[in-house]
């Protein structure tokens, strides 16, 4: 029986992995069992899930490292002039 009961710390870790679809089936079962009797983790799990939903809802666009370098180069040129 002890096999299926985990501590809050591990439950939190599994819950995080769950958000990235990296939890195994056994881990998921353990988490579900833990959530049945632990209200603190239930709360955390719900807000963690909500966060994932929000993050999925929006599309992030980042600068490629090349684009960032271009901005950096042109800025540093000006910066040097200023610091002379």
């Amino acid at each position, binding site marked *: 029986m002890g096999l299926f009961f985990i501590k809050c710390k591990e439950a*939190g*870790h599994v819950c*995080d*992995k769950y*958000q*990235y679809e*990296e939890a195994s089936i056994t881990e998921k079962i353990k988490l579900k069992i833990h959530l049945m009797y632990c209200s603190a983790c239930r709360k*955390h799990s719900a*807000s*963690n899930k*909500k*966060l994932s939903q*929000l*993050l999925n*809802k*929006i*599309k*992030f*666009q*980042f*600068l490629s490292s090349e*684009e*960032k370098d*271009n*901005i*950096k180069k*042109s*800025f540093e040129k*000006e*910066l040097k002039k*200023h610091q002379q």
Partner: protein
Amino acid sequence: MPKHTLNPNNWVDLYSDYLFNYTITRVNDRVIAQDLVSETFLAGLNAMKNFKGEAAERTWLISILKRKIIDYYRKINSNKGKAEVRMTYNDSESEGDWLEERIADPFDKTAEDSIENEELADAIQSCIAKLPKKQAEVFKKKTILNQETETISKELNITASNLWVIVHRARVALASCLEKNWF
């Protein structure tokens, strides 16, 4: 409250992604967005002596960027010349002026959704910007760039369990930050 200071040496590393994301949701063109971010940094540099230390560096830069975006839209509007507005009443195809054609389509929620998502993106970005540097870096790589755990831990020279601890802290901080600023 301590006075805020400016440190332009770190600007590009710290704020370029944040400013770029803010711009791209508003101008929808990668090249123009990059130009505007670049211009913002330069304008900031030239205006450093006007900085009173009342706002955080990031807030101050965003306020410059906002002006740049407004200027950009003003410019493209004046390029268009004088707009011609033509109204046709009573053309043969649709006789009369139907009230139904004038009201907003209640089933078209896309505009509202995109505004909400824009605000959500701002909220998330500013919450990420408040995280400690290392946490923000790991979180971005893992969550937004969807990199493998192994790749990140190799690149940053940390163990996988260390990475998960950092991700966990970042998620908890983000959730509580968003709870304050979004819900």
